[in-house]
């Protein structure tokens, strides 16, 4: 059952506002964000509905929606929002909270998006920079889709579009140290 704010505080709304620096309550549901968003058609709930869900304190539903995973942070919506709400920051806040609280959207697409980002971050942790070829290979292996983009590979490799190696940082230690401290900070919160 949905309860509207009368039973005390909407702690979910407060958490999102605090993390994003935006005030979701300012949204008056005009829907301009939905019309502007290039990926709203792929979302379970388009940005306008997510905003309302946060206002209603629908934490589980917001966390489990694929919307914040599909948000490209292109900022087209916030540029046109008549209330000037930083909607991408709201999406990001919901996603970060969902990750922190271990809410896992298990749809294949979301799992793939998440896997990609995890592999990307592991590349930086290891080399300090992105190793594109290895990232693509790992993504294909870990999503069990070995032949994805393989038809592009011969041309891209021949033309040197994608280099075979990566030049790691001299101070790769500095990056690993950064990761370790950042992870510690994450736990402290």
């Amino acid at each position: 059952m949905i309860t509207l704010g009368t039973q005390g505080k909407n702690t979910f709304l407060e958490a999102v506002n605090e993390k994003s620096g935006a005030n979701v309550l300012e949204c008056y549901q005009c829907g301009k964000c939905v019309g502007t968003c290039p990926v709203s058609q792929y979302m379970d709930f388009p940005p306008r509905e997510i905003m309302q869900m946060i206002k209603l304190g629908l934490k589980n539903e917001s966390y489990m929606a694929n919307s914040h995973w599909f948000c490209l942070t292109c900022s087209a919506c916030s540029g046109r929002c008549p209330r000037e709400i930083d909607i991408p920051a709201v999406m990001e806040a919901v996603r970060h909270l969902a990750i922190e609280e271990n809410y896992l959207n298990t749809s294949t697409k979301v799992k793939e998006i998440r896997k990609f980002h995890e592999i990307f971050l592991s590349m930086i942790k290891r080399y300090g920079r992105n190793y594109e070829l290895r990232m693509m290979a790992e993504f294909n292996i870990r999503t069990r889709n070995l032949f994805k983009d393989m038809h592009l590979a011969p041309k891209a490799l021949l033309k040197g579009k994608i280099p075979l190696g990566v030049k790691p940082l001299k101070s790769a230690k500095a990056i690993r140290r950064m990761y370790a401290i950042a992870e510690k900070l994450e736990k402290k919160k």
Partner: protein
Amino acid sequence: MKKLTYFPGCSAHGTSEEFDSTLKLVLKTLDVVLEDIPDWNCCGATSAHVMTENLAYALPMRNLVLAEKLENTTMGIACASCYQRMKVTKVHMDENPELAKRINSTVVEDGTYHGSVEIKSMLQYAYEDIGLETIKSKVTKPLTGLKVACYYGCLLTRPKNITHFDSPEYPVSMDQICEALGATATDFDFKTECCGASFSISNTEVVESLSGKILEMAKESGAHAIVVACPLCQSNLDMRQPDIEKLQGVKYGIPVFYFTQLMALAFGYPIDQLKFPKHIIPVEGALANIGKVDPSAEKTKKTTKAVKAESEVQ
């Protein structure tokens, strides 16, 4: 001679090597010397900010701290995603000293963050610091006859309170640079639509759909080529173009240049230095239009100027 701190970004050594190398040619002509940030690291784009707040700030922070050790006041960034992440970090750190202190603790062995270096995209640097007049004065082979759709993507001008550059809806800086080179910028409505960016690998269908619309609109605007200032836009529009053509059943064959490649071409650099063989879509067809006079060119030119005048009034 001017000096500029330079953050090349990971793709400068890979997918966008032609952006990096033509940028260096152009700046040589313009008497600007680049100083790389020593031992720079990946800025985290676009994955760090998706997954975690601390790393999203910490990765750019290390580069900002290292950049402060060089003497220049401005840093130029080639890649639009890197530019966005570094600028977001700087703006948020400057607004919130408490946060800056917390993030600085992750890279404190590299130095202390003061926020003293200004961050600009290379497009912004060319437009604001070098200027159209200087660019024009260096042109030896004008690109007359070449019609281009200037595509900015999402990250160079948005969000406005972060970038403070050009218009978030209908920017004109790259159009004016191309016109200073003698080319004609078409009236192109999809200048700041998203190409799908970071979904290139994990969500290719979305990229093909979004980039497909951009190609369609560019073609409709009458452009021979698209001009970009972002490595992700370039690879999505160029490398994925044959697949998009197959999907839509249309033949675009529209090459995607970095604006620095066109600048270098107009500045008279020989074609074999411009890395055109790296393009998936061949460039020769579009370049064959240079030198041909098109009667409709004058008209399009006026449209861009009128729009600029309009945006200035606003």
